């Protein structure tokens, strides 16, 4: 399935885009999708991103479904 993934901050800069579409297998988890995204980013970016599915933090083991809004969340720096 095609999954559109939102990117932010250093991740978006590294890719030169604020979203990317990856080709994930049915039943792919959040970690699987993250790995696919990271393969596209070849420059150094801050480590340890989290993944959100539909605007909620997701465990790496959570399964991604077609149409989900998936986002890579680099270490946050608000406040």
């Amino acid at each position, binding site marked *: 399935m095609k999954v559109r993934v*939102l990117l*932010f*901050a*250093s991740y978006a*800069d590294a890719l030169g885009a604020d979203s990317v579409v990856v080709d994930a297998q049915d039943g792919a988890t959040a970690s699987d999708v993250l790995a696919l995204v990271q393969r596209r980013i070849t420059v150094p970016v*801050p*480590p*340890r991103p989290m993944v*959100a599915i539909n*605007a*909620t*933090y997701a465990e790496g083991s959570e399964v991604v479904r077609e149409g989900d809004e998936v*986002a890579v*969340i*680099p*270490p*946050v*720096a*608000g*406040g």
Partner: protein
Amino acid sequence: MSAVARLVDRPIDVSALTREVADVGCGATTVFLGTVRDLNDGRAVSGIDYKSYERMAASELQAIADEVAARHQGARVVVEHRLGYLELGDASVGIAVAHARRAASMDAARTVIEEIKKRVPIWKREHYVDGTREWVDPTKSVAHPGQGDR
């Protein structure tokens, strides 16, 4: 209980936040403001650009306000986070908590800012006086305990 959270793209007004939480049942109001410093990690900063995953940042910010208000019975919580380019001295975050008692009001305000820093998807790109820019990675600041993130 009352809990309001807002992402804004205009200056944060400390008076307005204070008035918004004011209540004659509350004897204590704590306000916290985070402002743009001229120095971070030893580098001269000229401004900071705040970006967010807006939909999620709004819901996380509201969740934090709700959780804190629920933990401290009768608390009145308002939190605003500003987005966009901020100059030195501008407030990026404003938190006001009114409560019957001072300890609860102070603890609640502190919890709000600590939680924001842990989980709200907002990022900042520092602009330095030397013309460069960099996304701030707070996971690195442990190495500079004396100079890290505010």
